[in-house]
């Protein structure tokens, strides 16, 4: 059975659509900026983020929007874009066998902050908004997208931080393959909060050396990389069985032909190279491919010292010295839950155009990293397959293998 992507939607710090985001990526633009209010936080050394600006939420009716924080609003926008591209109406979503698989790292931290601040200041339960619960639940984005779509099918809200979006795609593919649905709406969203920066800063995993030159702050694989730059956004794909796609005369944006997930089970903060490599190997086996069939690897690479090292070692173990590889975290920062879906969409775009994006800010390849084909400029070459990796806190490994549509444009 082949499983196709028939729709995609993105809200990112680089643009509020797939096209706007892809155009900015191809132009080599960075979305990172200095956050002045973070510079005033005692003890916080990371003062850079990538935030979605000028987002207009008024397309969502007030009654539906009242329970949404920014992450849900952004995911509704990405969902609407993806459904439009897939030519799926709300009636189609209701009457076809569709599953909704969307998640976030947490509920809205900003909403939690407002609620707890009121409580601690007053010592009272008075003054709490009724909608707080819906914005802070772990499945907040799922319940809100479902409400936006008036969705009546099965809803599952995966949550595995940086791997959430990729895991949603994997689960969607598995559910379609198993026959439980014909269409899966898979995605993720997260919103920036100073608490995330504090958490990564405290764990010595946030960039702090480029606060004065913020667009240089996220630099995967670079010798001077010094950590994650927190970001936000939303992304969603429509996955569909070939039979359903053909019955609707929908257009394929590409296929998902292999996938694997595993838990490292080792250090809680990161996966090791061995489990990453095994996950990639398992994804290749699922696809029935050998390493030479894959022409490009879209890396998770968040610009931490160890994460990039272990991932590059794993890719080298599987693919050898020359495999073209890049990470989009240099352009976009690390958006956590949506990054996997966003990177899969970007990888499909690269497969369709046969133009492969570089890692932004990769000025000097870290000599400690193994030899790989680290892309430093937009590169044109022919390949039918790409691998997209995401690795999350707790050792959550996901590898996806994507295939170009039949006739690359």
């Amino acid at each position, binding site marked *: 059975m082949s499983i196709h992507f028939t729709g995609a939607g993105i809200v990112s710090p680089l643009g509020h659509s797939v096209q706007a985001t892809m155009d900015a990526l191809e132009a080599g633009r960075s979305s990172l900026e200095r956050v002045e209010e973070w510079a005033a936080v005692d003890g916080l050394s990371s003062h850079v983020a990538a935030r979605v600006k000028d987002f207009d939420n008024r397309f969502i009716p*007030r*009654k539906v929007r*009242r*329970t949404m924080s920014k992450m849900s609003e952004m995911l509704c926008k990405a969902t609407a874009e993806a459904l439009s591209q897939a030519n799926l109406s709300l009636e189609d979503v209701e009457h076809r066998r569709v599953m909704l698989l969307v998640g976030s790292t947490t509920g809205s931290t900003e909403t939690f902050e407002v609620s707890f601040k009121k409580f601690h200041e007053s010592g009272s339960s*008075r*003054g709490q*908004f*009724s*909608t707080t619960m819906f914005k802070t639940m772990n499945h907040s984005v799922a319940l809100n997208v479902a409400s936006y779509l008036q969705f009546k099918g099965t809803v599952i809200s995966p949550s595995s931080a940086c791997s959430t979006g990729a895991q949603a795609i994997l689960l969607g593919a598995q559910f379609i393959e198993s026959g439980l649905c014909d269409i899966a709406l898979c995605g993720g969203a997260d919103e920036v909060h100073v608490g995330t920066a504090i958490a990564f800063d405290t764990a010595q995993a946030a960039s702090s050396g480029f606060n004065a030159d913020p667009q240089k702050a996220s630099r995967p694989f670079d010798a001077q990389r010094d950590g994650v730059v927190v970001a936000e956004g939303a992304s969603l794909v429509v996955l569909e069985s070939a039979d359903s796609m053909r019955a609707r005369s929908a257009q394929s944006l590409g296929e998902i032909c292999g996938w694997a997930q595993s838990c490292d089970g080792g250090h809680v903060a990161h996966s090791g190279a061995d489990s990453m490599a095994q996950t990639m190997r398992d994804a290749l086996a699922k696809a029935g491919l050998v390493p030479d069939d894959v022409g490009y690897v879209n890396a998770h690479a968040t610009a931490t010292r160890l994460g990039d090292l272990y991932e590059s070692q794993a890719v080298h173990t599987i693919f050898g010295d020359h495999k073209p590889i890049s990470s989009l975290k240099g352009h976009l920062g690390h958006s956590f839950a949506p990054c996997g879906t966003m990177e899969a969409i970007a990888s499909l775009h690269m497969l369709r155009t046969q133009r492969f994006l570089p890692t932004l800010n990769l000025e000097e390849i870290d000599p400690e990293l193994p030899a790989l084909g680290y892309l430093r400029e937009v590169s044109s070459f022919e390949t039918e397959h790409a691998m997209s990796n995401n690795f999350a806190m707790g050792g959550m490994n996901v590898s996806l293998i994507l295939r170009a549509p039949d006739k690359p444009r």
Partner: protein
Amino acid sequence: MSPIAEKINTILIEEFEFSPDVLTEDASIRDTLELDSLDAVDLTVLLEEQTGAKVDPRSFIDLRTLGDIHRLVEGIVAGKGA
């Protein structure tokens, strides 16, 4: 219109995104404004923040029109000041 009624209408315009045109005294809470129990809670929170009036959202249950809300809150504020 009393200052309290104006304040309530301002909240409904700014926070609940109603057009001023629909905010008539006889506008039905349920059928015209479509305010439900969640909205009632949040409206009372905003009212307390902006007027000091402590309104129990459960007191909205028996109200039918926007004018009823105006009169309920006006009464509470008057009682508070008395």
